[in-house]
């Protein structure tokens, strides 16, 4: 067991490059979905990972899970190096590390009843007999607040919020220590979202879980995360405690991202929001800092080298050369 407050998961310079191929399948470049990502997840915390679509959030989750083999770097989970191991190769290690899908409906086999889908992880990972497995499945189903009658339904017969609960139940049967939640609230209406979020927090207490919470919904992240990692085009640009990031963001990207949250009684978004244009093509990145093409603080220096993620303040790191400066007009 890892004592609380220590690193449960450590990523060291993790890279995931996808080849870009032309019509003749010749590689003409790399799409750097994750480039030199280093961070740690402490036991018992909820680490939020935020960023625009396509910034590598999901790739981060899937690479940690072993769904994508990493191009470089190391993944250390509970002190064991699990880099590049396929899920079935590192079965016992992976038991403690689980991933919930963005679309829980699609992650359930349409031909399998809910009960069978919930049973599968137990069949794979435990030597329990059928009766004991049924017991575990029933317990977990009630823990996520679903009636037992749902065991005999097919995935398409239940609602999106219920599918989400089933997806969570499916991985919780294994009693993991770390759960990667990929966009766990997307596609749910606000009232269901609140119930699901409360469920996450309840389950965290009940099962002593650590979450990596991947989301683009900043208000949700602010509500439930302890620390936040902000990603931009495959790199972590800012990392720190949630209050610090939301109250005093340092990286210009984070500042613009946060100004996009609508707030009652605050300035209208358009006045302080200077994040213009689309992010550059991830297959053809600008030199140096990736944000410089959209950055109001950018200077010639920014093109020279990739600014490292540095702890400018204790426990609050950012990857910007000029993060101490005020934003003009912002």
């Amino acid at each position, binding site marked *: 067991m890892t004592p609380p407050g220590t690193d449960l998961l450590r990523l060291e310079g993790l890279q995931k490059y996808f080849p870009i191929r032309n019509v003749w399948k010749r590689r003409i470049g790399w799409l750097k979905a994750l480039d030199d990502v280093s961070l740690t997840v402490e036991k018992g915390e909820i680490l939020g990972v935020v960023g625009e679509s396509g910034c590598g959030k999901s790739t981060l989750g899937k690479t940690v899970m072993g769904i994508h083999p990493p191009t470089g770097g190391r993944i250390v989970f509970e002190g064991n190096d699990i880099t590049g191991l396929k899920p*079935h190769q590192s079965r016992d290690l992976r038991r403690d590390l*689980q991933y919930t899908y963005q679309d829980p409906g699609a992650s359930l*086999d349409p*031909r399998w009843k809910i009960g069978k889908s919930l049973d599968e992880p137990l069949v794979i990972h435990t030597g329990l007999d059928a009766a004991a497995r049924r017991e575990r499945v029933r317990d977990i189903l009630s823990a996520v607040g679903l009636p037992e009658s749902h065991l005999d339904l097919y995935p*398409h017969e239940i609602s999106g919020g219920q599918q989400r609960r089933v997806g969570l139940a499916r991985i919780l049967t294994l009693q993991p220590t770390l759960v990667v939640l990929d966009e766990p609230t997307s596609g749910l209406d606000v009232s269901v979202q609140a119930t699901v979020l409360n469920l996450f927090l309840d389950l965290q207490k009940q099962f002593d879980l650590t979450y990596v919470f991947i989301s683009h919904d900043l208000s949700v992240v602010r509500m439930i995360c302890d620390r936040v990692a902000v990603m931009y085009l495959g790199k972590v640009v800012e990392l720190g405690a949630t209050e610090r990031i939301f109250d005093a963001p340092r990286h210009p990207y984070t500042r613009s991202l946060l100004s996009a949250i609508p707030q009652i009684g605050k300035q209208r978004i358009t006045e302080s929001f200077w994040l213009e244009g689309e992010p550059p093509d991830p297959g053809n990145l600008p030199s140096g800092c990736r944000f410089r093409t959209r950055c109001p603080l950018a200077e010639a220096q920014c093109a020279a080298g990739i600014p490292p993620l540095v702890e400018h303040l204790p426990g609050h790191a950012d990857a910007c050369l000029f993060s101490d400066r005020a934003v003009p007009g912002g």
Partner: protein
Amino acid sequence: MMETARFLLRKLAADRTAALGALLILLLIVVAIAAPVLSTHPQDVAEFNPPGRLQPPSAEHYFGTDRMGSDVYSRILFGARITITIAVIAIGVSVLIGVPVGLVAGYYRNWASDALMRISDIFLAVPQIVLAIAIAQTLGPSIENVILALSATYWPFWARLVYAETRSALNETYVEASIALGASPGRVMLFHVLPNISSSLIVRTTIGMGGTILTAATLGFLGLGPPAPSPEWGRTIAESREFLPEAWWYATAPGLAIFLVVMGFNLFGDGLRDILDPRTRRSSDG
């Protein structure tokens, strides 16, 4: 299981052409099993009656008599047994070879899976019937060799089909989710991929039965099927040629039998395609 069977029956009842196809298939099976009971002259399969040759249809001989004076009707009924035997075994063997090959080649992405698919491509490059004729010709005319020729030339079709279906199933999130959960390759192939491609397999098997019966009849027609005096349908048509158009019943009866059976499998296969979609299951029968 019972639930599924009842569901299929109800769906079939609603789809008339599929029901007709099912009826024709059922008829073929009943005829094949009960041939000795249903036939009027069961001994005619092996015995000849030259004085009574080439008689037109009558109350005594429903489809007339052939060049040996045997009852065509009775011989058609016994021919159904040969047809079913050839089609079922040939399809069974080619599915048993082709499906595992397709699954493994589709699941793994390495030189071995490429090699398997290139081998099946070699077979698919030549039309099935040509290859089957060549094999049957080399081995000599018999039921066993027809089955062998058909199986040897039909499995690549299944390998190719299952390969493509497996590749697309692997892109499904639920397959990825099982892999992430730690499911072994065998488990993923057998319990996730195979069940999810089974409906298209069942549909293709049904339609493939029709095609195989037609190919088997072609081999019989060319004299590569079971030798005389076998009542095989293709052979019967070949024998009847020199007596056309006077003895029209002689060629019409086996021709009609082949036509109805092949149509039966095709109609049933088309109907199954519509029925076997899990997403339309309960929502539509409420």
